[in-house]
């Protein structure tokens, strides 16, 4: 806490309720709220799972990783590493046009970071009407750091299953013109989900999860 506070990354607002402080993608955000947790997934080859006859929660269809190669203490202003990781991931995921994935974005409330994420997503996601909905679970969970992308993967599996995207709460004045899932959960078919992760040090990774249709 001391480190994050002294580096200016921790949200400092005391004029709102604690639950309203974590505001990724919002103009009012002043930093992240630190969180904690763990999420674990079991992966199997499809044949292995079919042979066991187990329930398949989703298919992991793509992965890409990259680095900003920019600065240890701040993200590249246009999210260069994240854009590259997402592009690599989408290129490899073999999704069809009908499977445009909903996006679990790594925005955490640190203004420079959120702008980098928004810039990267704006560049690499399809334009216009086919632009997918974007949500940031760190608004609800806080920033669980090394656990965050795994937690988003579990959320993505549930979103695909339930056809419902969790909201980005506390998002009233978006920093970018993107189709955010603001305020309330969105009831929508989620054939696939993109989980994007972006760490200090410029580390970026992206995963695509897809509904398993047999």
């Amino acid at each position, binding site marked *: 806490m*001391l*480190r994050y506070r002294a*580096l200016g990354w921790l949200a400092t607002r005391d004029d709102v309720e604690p639950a309203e402080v974590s505001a990724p993608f919002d103009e009012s955000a002043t930093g992240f709220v630190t969180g904690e947790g763990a999420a674990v997934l079991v992966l199997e080859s499809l044949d292995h799972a079919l042979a066991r006859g187990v329930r398949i929660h989703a298919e992991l269809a793509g992965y890409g*990783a990259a680095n900003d190669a920019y600065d240890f203490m*701040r993200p590249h202003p246009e999210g260069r590493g994240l854009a*590259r990781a997402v592009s690599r991931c989408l290129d490899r995921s073999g999704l069809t046009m009908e499977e445009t994935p909903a996006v679990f974005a790594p925005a955490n409330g640190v203004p420079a970071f959120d702008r980098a994420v928004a810039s990267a997503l704006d560049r690499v996601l399809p334009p216009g009407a086919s632009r997918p909905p974007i949500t940031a679970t760190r608004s609800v969970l806080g920033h669980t750091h090394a656990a965050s992308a795994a937690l988003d993967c579990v959320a993505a599996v549930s979103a695909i299953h339930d056809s419902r995207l969790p909201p980005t709460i506390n998002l009233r004045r978006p920093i970018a013109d993107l189709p955010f899932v603001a305020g309330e959960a969105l009831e929508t078919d989620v054939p696939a989900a993109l989980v994007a992760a972006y760490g200090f040090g*410029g*580390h970026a990774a992206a995963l695509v999860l897809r509904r398993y249709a047999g």
Partner: protein
Amino acid sequence: MKRRVAITGLGVVSPLGNGAAKYWDGLTHGRSGVGQIGRYDASGLPVHIAAEVRGFALTDYSDAPVVFEADGERVTLDLRTQYALAAAEMAVRAAGLERAEEWADADLYFGAGEGDNDLALLSRLLTPFSCPEPGCDVPRLLARSDAGHFALHDQLMEPTAPASLLAARYGIEGEVTTCLTACAASAQAVGEAMRRIQAGECDLALTGGAHAMTGPLDVLGFAMLSALSSRNDAPARASRPFDRHRDGFVLGEGAGALVLEEWSHARRRGAAVYAELVGYGTANDAYRVTDMEPEARGAAAAIARALDDAAVGPERIGYINAHGTSTLENDRAETAALHRALGDAARTIPVSSTKSMTGHAVAAAGALELIAVVLALRDQVVPPTINLETRDPECDLDYVPNAARAHAFDTALSNSFGFGGQNVSLIVRRDRP
């Protein structure tokens, strides 16, 4: 069909000297890098010997800034990161790639652990907040003028800092990953980078590892675990793998860096190839955090997987660089693993532990030892296990005692086993003209 992987650059920071040539000279002459700890007053510690890097200045090897600046704060980089920057620069220059734009598409896999903490800074910051009241007065701590300095220092201690700084320095925008598998970390990093090239994910990778676990808390911690040799009065004789009178390992430090390239990529640009990386195997003991599985099943599995990966039989292995820490447990278990994985061939293959000279550089050890193997292949000379005076009766292999040996061989194995049961084996082949 797997793509072939060439080693085209090497860089070394070690207690035997910096640069591959000095390192190799020390290894082949059987010199010990172990001495009394000189960087701080260690006289009050139960163990006060280590293999320290001496006379190191980053500016001798790289124009990378030794001070990191952000938001008006200036923090001197920890030794681990300085060693990483120096070794990487040597490797990149050796490969002739210091200005190559193709680093943008390269990958970086690096083995590391936490940085070596600035204890003076830490104690200055925390002293007013120590007992009698437990806990910490955060507002008061934050009000201090050096809180920002401490925060930046703390951030730079992150295990991922060396890889991030290397990525920024060379413009490596591909996959940049830090391997944290303790004593096996840099061997794992090399293996993972190799797999990426084999699979066609990249044509060029920077890899290796750096660590400097020679500070007072490191020495004290490992001493309390009874893992270290307490031969304080005879430092050069303290690291004695496979010797009957060994009593633990000696902490070391340093960095090893390698440039890996897809074979035709290296050939096309006319790069000199040191050796070919042909096998990688990794397996876990799934046993206990601080002990090796007594029958060394995980270690044997890693060796067997590396042989499978390289598609070579045990009889093709001409030299083994052992993990060989000089602990009672490791050296017996590793010997058992070699018997288990290699069968009858184990009896005739020279096996040496260069940790007898370098001490144990923890996350940097695997890369440093792989570099020793590459140089051994080049010169057809096997480095010795020094201080091997009376062989442990339960260690019954040819450990190349005390003197380097001329030896004709073309394929070699390097073992790295980590706390946590993490086992990695790598196989290298001589690039025949």
